[in-house]
């Protein structure tokens, strides 16, 4: 009893922090979705359900769908690219590894907007990439590389890839590569060893990477705004529009709430699935920990 009281006291500051700076604002956002807006772009003083009712304007389901697929596909691509990179990083000599890690991290020191504008230059119709591709006949003359969903996808993967690499690399670095020798010794090909021994050993970090990438990817708005065309709007764009152009805060709040629900639903689902199927696993692990300590 006393112990749990102590734990409560110790965690009080962080609990308060979470409450004030996280739970409360989220609650306010949900609340604003049900208020009227006033003439000056602020929050009115009446309750209404109209905002929520009118949320599904024509074309809105396409935006939701696009947000989900761009988010999911960019996450999947980031993971698929990050896993082999993390694998090779972990196997590299420390000297080379530091250089490569630097190369991954250095772009962060440049402003995000500038990096996106670099992409705009790179994918520009008059840019070197498009002209080279046309010249060697890989793409027809009229193909545009910029201002479409593919440009959005490419820049999203570019942006979120480091966030996927770092947690997976952290796990891969702790992986005992002698286990791959053991797998080979038992008859497994390199690929079988990778799939049956390496991947399961770092699976937790892959889930972490999924979370770390999927959540900001679903909320992206600068990227579709800058490199996407009129047909690559995402939820984030709609929210920004409601705030800055329409000056309709209740609508922005309702959209944000919807986005949050979209993010949390798969999260909840995944946690539930893990809880149902992975129960034995966790139990055993805690027993192991107990035995060790």
């Amino acid at each position, binding site marked *: 009893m006393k112990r749990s009281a102590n734990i409560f006291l110790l965690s009080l500051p962080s609990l308060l922090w979470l409450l004030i700076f996280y739970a409360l604002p989220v609650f306010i956002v949900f609340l604003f979705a049900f208020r009227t807006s006033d003439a000056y772009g602020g929050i009115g003083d009446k309750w209404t359900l109209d905002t929520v009712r009118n949320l599904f304007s024509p074309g809105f389901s396409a935006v939701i769908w696009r947000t989900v697929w761009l988010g999911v596909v960019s996450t999947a691509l980031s993971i698929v690219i990050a896993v082999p990179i993390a694998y090779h990083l972990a196997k590299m000599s420390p000297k080379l590894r530091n250089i490569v890690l630097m190369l991954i991290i250095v772009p962060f020191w440049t402003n995000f907007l500038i990096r996106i504008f670099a992409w705009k230059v790179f994918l520009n119709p008059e840019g070197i990439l498009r002209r080279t591709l046309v010249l060697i006949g890989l793409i027809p003359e009229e193909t545009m590389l910029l201002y479409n969903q593919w440009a959005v996808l490419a820049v999203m993967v570019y942006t979120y890839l480091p966030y996927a690499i770092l947690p997976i690399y952290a796990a891969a670095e702790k992986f*005992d590569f*002698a*286990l791959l*020798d*053991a*797998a*080979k*010794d*038992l*008859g*497994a*090909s390199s690929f*079988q060893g990778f799939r*049956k*021994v390496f991947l*399961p*050993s770092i699976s937790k970090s892959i889930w972490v990477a999924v979370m770390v990438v999927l959540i900001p990817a679903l909320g992206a708005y600068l990227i579709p705004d800058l490199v996407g065309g009129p047909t690559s709007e995402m939820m984030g764009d709609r929210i920004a529009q409601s705030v800055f152009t329409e000056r309709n805060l209740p609508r922005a709040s309702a959209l944000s709430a919807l986005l949050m629900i979209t993010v949390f639903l798969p999260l909840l689902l995944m946690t539930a699935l893990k809880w149902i199927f992975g129960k034995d696993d966790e139990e*055993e692990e805690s*027993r*192991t920990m107990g*035995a*060790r300590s």
Partner: protein
Amino acid sequence: MSDSILQFQNITKRFGSQTVLDNVSLDVGAGEIFSLLGPSGCGKTTLLRICGGFESPDNGRVILDGKDITSLPPNKRAIRTVFQNYALFPHMTVWDNVAFGLKIAGADKETITREAGKYIELVQLTGHEKKKPGQLSGGQRQRVAIARALVNKPKILLLDEPLAALDLKLRQRMLIELDTIHDEVGITFLFVTHDQQEAMSISDHIAVMHNGSVEQVGNPVELYEAPKNSFIAAFIGDTNFFDGIVESVDGEYCTVAIKDFPSLKVYNDKKLKKGDKVNLSIRPEKFSISSTEPRITDAHTNLLRGKVEEVIYLGAHTRYWVRVQDWRISVIKQHFSYALDEKNIRWDDEVWLRFEGDNAYMLERYTQEDENLLALPDI
């Protein structure tokens, strides 16, 4: 030697400028326990990794069952390894670890259930199938590693210091169990160790390695009684070394003059001539120690007088250090009779040492370098 199943032919391996294996050739007989024995860093693991396919030799060939496997990858060799740290898959249960090789080989469900079950039983882990490696003791982990390696019925099982991580009692028990398992499966074991007792007690043949070369191959008795050189004589068991010159030859025997020591009459194993240099090894148990003058029955019996400098009582036997002129001789006395009834030899006693000329052994060479190397502790 029985039919050979594995041959190393002139294996040479360099790491950078360091030659780790220098022209190593070995013949391993089918079904035997063959040990690679040598001090730390002599290249045992490297030779094993070449056998498993994890390193490729700069020169030479590995022949398994008559076929050259030198360039085959590890997963294409009918060879399995018990790694030094076991390398069990931590995310898999005992069962899945053992079944891994069968699943990879594409065995059907029935075979997997039967075979994995059989080998788990063989290593006495029935009931632990659902545990993960993290929940097992060191000895149990090692059994999993053995079962996992045996399940595909390899032609050779490689074991890299499999007992090094276990404590002394468990080590002795596992050694017996390894022997039992070997008898049961009939697979050739190639066993790496730097512990001479381990090698002596389990092996059919031992190759003693030193600085990347094989010094001598033989069965345990040959290695102990007829070591080729001082390195082996000192590495396997204890011994007394004597440096001398042949004084006179008398038929099959000769007399060896040793500086500051009585001359010794020994069997002239190497057919040396008068004036030849000779290095003798006399094992401590070959001396018999007594406080009264023993009767000499044989013309080739040597008798030495000395003074006891140290006594270490060890139950079954006692070790004495006896000073004879300028030399300290190590002597072991077995207690055949009830030791309390005997008149004990004590520190500072004047004693007689007797040994038969047949029980000394002439070594090929004896260099200061060898002795220095032996003086270094194992790392």
